[in-house]
């Protein structure tokens, strides 16, 4: 068995060093496209690291959101940056070729302010880590003791959707704010549908039902095993991104109130349920034990819809105003 332990140790060491190396390369790369690809690879290795730490829930979320959807968003943003600056791929670099013109006083001030704020928050986080008790059993015992009353048997879901469900409520609002932020910059211009090419059409037609099935499975299994709203939502969101990339566009009719309803339903359900529980149980989001399982499933289902809509719409908004796949090369 010593050999197995050594192998695991070696694997972890390679994984950890690989992560550091990828992070450094991604930050240090002068080519933004390369940096994004390195970031995606970093996300996938990070998911592996979470698996090694026995945190499959986080691993699923990291692979789907951290590597997949964030990568897609970054690539779309880069493609848009290229059309905006009207340069080709190698032209957009993190380090401009020309020496920057002397910075005006305002920009220097804001840069100084940025450094100050970043240093302050880093110092705050450092202090928080420093002041942690050196030995702690954590809260896993408490969670295990109350798991029976949570309505689910997966402790992660119990914490996220019951014991600390206001965290998830706030996360839903953060997602909503992200869409509002992007829309306030540019709105959502109408997009012409481009019929996809044969292979992409087959791919998207075949994979969409599979993805929906996987999302439903992840949502359902979240009660007892790794999975849940965020994982299911990101898989559904990725389906949306695949369809958008293939050239499909949602009907204009759907882009009006049905879209807004989908975007807000998760946060809305949380707030409604929070108010109800506040009235009836005198505590925010304290579900009655008998109904807890059903309420969690309801909340998670609605949150899945919202998360998926948010992620897909973020991608559509970021990539809009730019010909997705053809614009880049045809210019060259």
């Amino acid at each position: 068995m010593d050999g197995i332990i050594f192998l695991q140790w070696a694997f972890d060491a390679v994984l950890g060093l690989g992560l550091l190396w990828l992070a450094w390369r991604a930050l240090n790369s002068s080519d933004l496209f390369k940096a994004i690809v390195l970031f995606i690879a970093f996300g996938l290795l990070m998911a592996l690291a979470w698996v090694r730490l026995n945190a499959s829930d986080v691993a699923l979320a990291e692979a789907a959101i951290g590597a997949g959807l964030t990568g897609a968003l970054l690539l779309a943003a880069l493609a848009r940056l290229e059309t905006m600056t009207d340069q080709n791929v190698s032209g957009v670099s993190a380090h401009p070729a020309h020496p920057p013109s002397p910075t005006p006083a305002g920009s220097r001030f804001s840069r100084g302010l940025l450094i100050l704020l970043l240093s302050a928050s880093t110092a705050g986080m450092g202090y928080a880590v420093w002041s942690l008790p050196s030995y702690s059993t954590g809260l896993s015992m408490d969670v295990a003791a109350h798991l029976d009353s949570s309505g689910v048997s997966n402790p992660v879901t119990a914490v996220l959707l019951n014991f600390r469900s206001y965290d998830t409520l706030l996360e839903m609002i953060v997602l909503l704010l992200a869409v509002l932020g992007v829309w306030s910059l540019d709105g959502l211009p109408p997009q012409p549908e481009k019929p996809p090419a044969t292979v992409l059409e087959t791919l998207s037609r075949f994979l969409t039902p599979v993805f929906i099935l996987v999302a439903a499975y992840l949502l359902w299994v979240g009660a007892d095993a790794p999975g849940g709203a965020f994982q299911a939502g990101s898989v559904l969101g990725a389906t949306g991104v695949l369809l958008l990339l293939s050239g499909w566009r949602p009907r204009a009719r759907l882009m009006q109130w049905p879209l807004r309803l989908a975007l807000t339903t998760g946060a809305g359900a949380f707030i409604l349920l929070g108010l109800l529980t506040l009235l009836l149980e005198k505590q925010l989001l304290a579900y009655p034990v008998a109904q807890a399982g059903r309420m969690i499933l309801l909340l998670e289902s609605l949150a899945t819809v919202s998360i998926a809509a948010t992620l897909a719409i973020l991608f559509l908004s970021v990539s809009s105003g730019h010909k997705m796949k053809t614009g880049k090369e045809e210019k060259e």
Partner: protein
Amino acid sequence: MTATDYAAACLFILGGIFFFAGTAGLLRFPDVYTRLHALTKADNVGLGLIVAGLVLQAESWLVAGKLLLIWLLVLFAGACVAHLVARRALRKGIRIWTE
């Protein structure tokens, strides 16, 4: 270790060889088309062998079915993505490597 475990181990090693060869090809082959060839070999056959090994060791038919499904999905996605990359490269005018 039982005979099944030995058979599975052989499949893992074979799969590992394919992944190794695919990685070497990805790093060493001269152009995008040949690199795609190396990459998809690793994905299709290498992963297929590893999944076959895992299926041998699977505890139930359900697990075995899920593993096979993963392989089929990777096959499908790999074939489509390789086609898309190669087509884009051709349209962009990247020459096919000849000696």
